[in-house]
């Protein structure tokens, strides 16, 4: 049991020791290990997304009482693979009026940011690429950069749908950025650290969803808006804006945007389970299995919300962030402060 729990940590320790016995300096050995960790993360991302897109279509089919994909393989499991192959072999079209440099860099930037998010996520006991002392802040600040990638895509396309969609996403994402960061403040106040491993360790006895239920709900709503997922998918409302910022993109460039959105979804779900659901902590099963189970439960919740709620109108969407979420999160911070004084008696 202990062996399974520390399997990956043992493997990496053994690998470093083996490289050093060959006479490789420690810094180089670390760099090679980093390369392998990167390849593992890419593998995790690709495998997860393949499952996730299939799952999303199956869940939406189940909710809308239709079968969903069911031709390729048992229950249509190979549908995503076929779609990926199709997108990979599509002809590359760059419309004539685009700003080529911005148009080409936007999907690459989006995907790079999404992959970078994984560097601070604890994927098990001692399983973290870097344990930054500002890990949580790093995640939030990187996550907000996706706004720029979307705006680049919309502006560079020189298309009216794209620009309108991009402008809407920027307005929405900067509005929901603030409740997103503010709702995490309660967790940081209780833990006293921005290090994600400390936050997991602080949930040894009680998960933060029980101490910060309001923060969990506000963070979940704000994260749904940040991910541009329904019911907050106004920026890419396909019935009125064709595909928002992605209208002019096709083939692999579109696929990169699509992949990056799902990569973000996995990362945010993993962060949500790390912050509020005890991270990798759990009985009986190894820690890296627990984080996968919790992440998938959170992602299922995201899908459930997406396919059951109707889309929200733009003015309601903006008003909800500024007039409801921000006051509620500010009150939550003050309440957390008072609660800490009363129950812990600190500073007195």
């Amino acid at each position, binding site marked *: 049991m202990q062996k399974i729990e520390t399997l990956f940590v043992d493997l990496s320790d053994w690998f470093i020791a083996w490289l050093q016995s060959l006479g490789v300096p420690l810094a180089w050995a670390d760099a090679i290990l980093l390369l392998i960790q990167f390849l593992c993360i890419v593998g995790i991302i690709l495998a997860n997304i393949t499952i996730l897109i299939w799952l999303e279509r199956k869940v939406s089919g189940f909710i809308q009482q239709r079968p969903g994909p069911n031709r390729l393989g048992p229950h249509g499991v190979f549908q995503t693979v076929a779609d990926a192959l199709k997108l990979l072999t599509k002809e590359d079209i760059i*419309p004539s009026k685009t700003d080529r440099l911005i148009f080409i860099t936007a999907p690459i930037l989006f995907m790079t940011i999404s992959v970078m998010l994984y560097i601070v996520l604890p994927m098990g006991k001692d399983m973290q690429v870097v344990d930054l002392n500002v890990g949580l802040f790093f995640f939030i600040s990187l996550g907000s950069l996706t706004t720029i990638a979307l705006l680049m895509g919309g502006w560079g396309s020189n298309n009216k749908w794209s620009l309108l969609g991009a402008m809407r996403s920027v307005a929405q994402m900067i509005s929901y950025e603030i409740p997103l*960061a503010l709702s995490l403040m309660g967790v940081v*106040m209780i833990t006293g650290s921005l290090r994600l491993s400390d936050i997991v360790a602080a949930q040894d006895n009680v998960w933060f969803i029980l101490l910060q239920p309001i923060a969990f709900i506000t963070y979940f709503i704000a994260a749904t808006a940040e991910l541009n997922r329904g019911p907050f998918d106004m920026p890419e409302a396909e019935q009125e804006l064709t595909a928002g910022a992605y209208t002019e993109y096709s083939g692999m460039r579109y696929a990169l945007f699509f992949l990056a959105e799902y990569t973000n979804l996995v990362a945010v779900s993993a962060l949500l389970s790390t912050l509020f659901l005890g991270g990798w902590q759990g009985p009986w099963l190894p820690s890296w299995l627990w984080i996968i189970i919790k992440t998938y439960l959170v992602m299922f919740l995201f899908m459930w919300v997406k396919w059951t709620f109707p889309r929200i109108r733009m003015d309601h969407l903006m008003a909800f962030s*500024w007039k409801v979420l921000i006051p509620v999160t500010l009150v939550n911070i003050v309440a957390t402060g008072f609660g800490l004084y009363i129950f812990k008696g600190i500073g007195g």
Partner: protein
Amino acid sequence: MLSHSATIGIFLLLAVCFPVGAMIAAWMLRPKPKTPPDDQKLVPYECGVDTIGPTWIRFKPNYFLYALIFLAFDVEVVFLFPWAVKFQMLGLFAFVEMLIFIGILIIGLWYAWKEGALEWR
């Protein structure tokens, strides 16, 4: 041991390689038409009609107002993070101070609300 910044820097380079590699793979796999595509194929998509006028025009001022309020609040968030980390050590003084700080911001939000900056017209 690599330092944290070195690790992040190397990882950033690797992370750029992923989408670039995907684009290269697509470039190798996809069909390349012999003749250049004609103009009609490359016009901006607008449901089949030709686009009228430039796209890069001046936008609604609403977006600008939201951006201004966002800036004020985002700076507040940056100030709140270090305070939240050290909250349990700083004692009552910092707590009261932060209450005043949040109070000022709430007054600012109330003013923006009253002036109609939060209305989407």
